[in-house]
């Protein structure tokens, strides 16, 4: 530890931290542009100058290590003068277009120019002009505004793992870009917009849409992948205008994947905004009362089952379960993709190591998953671990995938997994030599005829290679959407018999619906499930309800209502509660608190929130014969990252991404 005095305040900081960090520990604000906590130190903007006793010149605090007994001054005349000078140089080539700049109002340069800059310009010469660059359909560039902090270059190289951005030419002519004008091949490109301290990189879909002070900000959770990214939904006049990540070091740090950030325009298109009832073979608009009456008539005396989809919240799920119980049915299913998940124990179907636990792992085996497209933010965490710790990553799946970190390709599928189970594979040595080994099993790898065997085999690999310890749980199932775990927690795994005569689909898109069955579709977007339905009940999307979500870790998080559902659409648990009334099976809760109390009763995990690190002492594996894995190659199931769910399939922004990045798929 080093004792440092900052403006007379004595703080003790670990050796090796920078002067800037010591100043922050003392509660002093240091202006900065190039420095970012989660990126390497560049030290090129010079804005963080401070004075250190006995140093002849001001020093750049972000790149200067502390020394014991150091005396730092952050507000001396030398510091103020130095920062004013740096700001003047930065503004020499920065255009005065704040009134038309999308960063206006949330711009580091604007704020710091007010706080630390001079009050007038002395520059009379011409400013430099820089051609705008193309970075893809999501990031808009106005390169005149670039102050060359190189945060974007470092983010692309270090966090996203796609070294495609750089600084070309030199001196006055230096420019940031890809040089070859291609779209950045990353699922994390939206974060460039957040880390750019000026308006050089802004959101293309959000261009000229709004000012930050006009927006109502609501904290919520992203459900378009299973990471459970913490988000802030910015809305104005009942319309979601943008979605930004919130910092949560346990989940997403401060990053966010592009689908969650940009697919929200799909919330305004192809919506189910009123009830529909099928009459004479055709769906006709109806009132809520007519819809409920039609349901009462349609399901009367029929054998009914219920399916939950990939984007459903826990409240709606428990209400559906209670309604089914009242109807005397326990035919519940949520594995619409056919994944052979064993829900008899929670650690069979969650990401037990925890996202933050990845940083402790010292060997990783990935089976049948492409985390880069299934959970880009979790993949960035794996990349961080590989980059800092150089841990070995074994991969079973398609050859030649670029996961953004070095991986040891072990084989394509079942045969390799079987070899690992027998302990005969060379990678067994690596796993056995590790203290904290972990396995990530893709949900897609279970959605095949031998899925149960794959699950059992992966568990056995975990058992045999010391991944299950009293204080370490190295078995992980990676889900694909934010609504997939809650229904598993609520027992939606009893299965739908083939002879079912009525189906209640809660946002579910089953591959087969029994012929002649009476189908109720409740959800927010109309796709195959709605097209087949006899009654459509318009529900609320994730930004439109106060709801509980469970991410792939099993972390319970709450999202809040940012905007009201469109038209006559309502929050889903309320729809089910209203339907129960008409069916004469009144559900015993009338308020959100009531549903949540019922949730906690149904499964105690909903009584708490967050994620509790846990180990594993019970080695009993899931049902399934570990020896029965077929020698079939694993296919990664998310082929089109940009259009993987109903919301993103309705999004124009995502459609453009698909056209850009997957020209063959868009045709």
């Amino acid at each position, binding site marked *: 530890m080093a004792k440092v005095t900052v403006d007379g305040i004595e703080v003790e900081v670990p050796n090796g931290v920078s002067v800037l960090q010591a100043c922050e520990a003392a509660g002093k604000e240091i202006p900065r542009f190039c420095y970012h906590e989660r990126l390497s130190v560049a030290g090129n903007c010079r804005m963080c100058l401070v004075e250190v006793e006995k140093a002849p010149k001001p020093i750049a605090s972000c790149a200067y290590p502390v020394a014991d007994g150091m005396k730092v001054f952050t507000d001396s005349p030398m510091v103020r003068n130095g920062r004013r000078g740096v700001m003047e140089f930065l503004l020499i080539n920065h255009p005065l277009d704040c009134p038309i700049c999308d960063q206006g109002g949330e711009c580091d340069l604007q704020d710091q120019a007010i706080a630390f800059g001079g009050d007038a310009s002395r520059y009379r010469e011409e400013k430099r002009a820089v051609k705008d660059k193309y970075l893809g359909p999501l990031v808009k560039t106005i390169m005149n505004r670039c102050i060359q902090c190189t945060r974007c270059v470092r983010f692309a*190289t270090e966090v996203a793992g796609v*070294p*495609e951005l*750089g600084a070309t*030419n030199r001196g006055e002519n230096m420019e940031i870009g*890809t*040089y*070859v*004008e291609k779209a950045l091949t990353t699922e994390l490109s939206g974060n460039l917009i957040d880390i750019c301290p000026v308006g050089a990189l802004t959101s293309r879909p959000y261009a000229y849409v709004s000012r930050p002070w006009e927006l109502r900000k609501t904290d919520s959770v992203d459900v378009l992948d299973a990471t459970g990214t913490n988000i802030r939904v910015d809305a104005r006049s009942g319309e979601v205008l943008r979605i930004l990540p919130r910092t949560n070091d346990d989940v997403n740090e401060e990053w966010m994947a592009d689908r969650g950030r940009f697919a929200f325009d799909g919330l305004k298109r192809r919506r189910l905004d009123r009830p529909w009832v099928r009459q004479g073979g055709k769906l006709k608009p109806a009132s809520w009362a007519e819809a409920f009456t039609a349901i009462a008539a349609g399901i009367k005396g029929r054998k009914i089952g219920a399916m939950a989809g990939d984007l459903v919240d826990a409240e709606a799920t428990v209400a559906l379960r209670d309604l089914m119980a009242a109807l005397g049915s326990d035919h519940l299913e949520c594995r619409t993709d056919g994944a052979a998940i064993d829900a008899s124990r929670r650690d069979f179907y969650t990401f037990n190591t925890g996202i933050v636990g990845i940083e402790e792992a010292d060997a990783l085996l990935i089976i049948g998953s492409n985390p880069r497209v299934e959970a880009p933010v979790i993949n960035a965490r794996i990349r961080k671990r590989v980059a800092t710790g150089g841990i070995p990553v074994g991969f079973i799946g398609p050859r030649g995938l670029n996961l953004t970190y070095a991986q040891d390709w072990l084989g394509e599928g079942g045969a390799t997994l079987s070899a690992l189970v027998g302990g005969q594979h060379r990678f067994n040595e690596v796993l056995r030599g590790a203290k904290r080994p972990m396995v990530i099993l893709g949900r897609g790898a279970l959605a095949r005829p031998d899925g149960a065997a794959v699950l059992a085999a992966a568990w056995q690999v975990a058992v045999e290679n010391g991944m299950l310890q009293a204080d370490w749980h190295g078995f992980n199932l990676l889900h694909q959407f934010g609504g997939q775990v809650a229904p598993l927690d609520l027992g939606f795994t009893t299965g739908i018999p083939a002879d079912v005569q009525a189906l209640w689909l809660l946002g579910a898109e089953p591959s087969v619906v029994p012929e002649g069955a009476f189908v109720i579709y409740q959800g927010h977007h109309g796709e195959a499930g709605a097209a087949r339905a006899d009654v459509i009940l318009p529900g609320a999307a994730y930004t439109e309800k106060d709801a509980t979500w469970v991410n792939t870790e099993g972390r319970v998080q709450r999202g809040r209502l940012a905007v009201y559902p469109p038209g006559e659409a309502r929050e889903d648990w309320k729809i089910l509660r209203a339907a129960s009334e008409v069916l004469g099976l009144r559900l015993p809760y009338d308020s959100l608190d009531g549903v949540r109390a019922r949730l906690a009763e149904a499964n105690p995990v909903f009584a708490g929130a967050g994620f509790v690190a846990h180990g594993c002492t019970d080695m009993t594996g899931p049902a399934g014969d570990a020896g029965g894995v077929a020698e079939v190659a694993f296919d990664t199931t998310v082929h089109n990252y940009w259009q993987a769910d109903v919301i993103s399939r309705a999004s124009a922004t995502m459609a453009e991404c698909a056209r850009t990045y997957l020209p063959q798929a868009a045709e």
Partner: protein
Amino acid sequence: MDAELSTATEIPQPNSFSFDEESLKAIEAIVKRYPPGKQASAVIPLLYVVQRQMKRSTGSGWVPNKGMDAVAERLGMAPIRVYEVATFYFMFNMKPIGKHHLQVCATTPCWLRGSDEVSRACREAGKLGGWGQTSEDGMFTLSEVECLGGCVNAPILQVDDDYYEDMDYESTVRLIEALRRGERPAPGSVIGRQTSAPEGGPQTLLDVPGE
């Protein structure tokens, strides 16, 4: 410096690039100089290899994008890291140039000794509009460069890899006309100076002690 810097998309680029036999031999020798794992250090010499190969195969010594990609692949680097290096250094021509690259040193010693006359001679005899331009016949490209380190024999005109020293207007015109005829005059001082010795023969140490 080039008057117009541009990104790669505006320049017609060849569709492919692969190292020829001679380049491969050179690369092998170059990469061996660096310890294993540090091959990226060879990026500058390899860019020269690309530029020379382009000169051999097309008559114009420049570095196309595909050439930089080939370097990146050979050295296990991200292509953008090669683009950064190549665009940083003026020795690498990022667009096609003429058959001969006339590089006039205009740093102070050369300028004091008449580099303005040398560049005027280049423009007039080579039919060049100005810095960074290529003559219509494709014979010459004119560049202004920083100190070439030959100040003793200033002014210097570097043609491709050769230094022509002690230049003035007339000798520059003669040199350019010779190049146009396909001749290659011997490099070095055009006034017959021996290496960097004083002009007109020895000036000091004329008496030999004991004689």
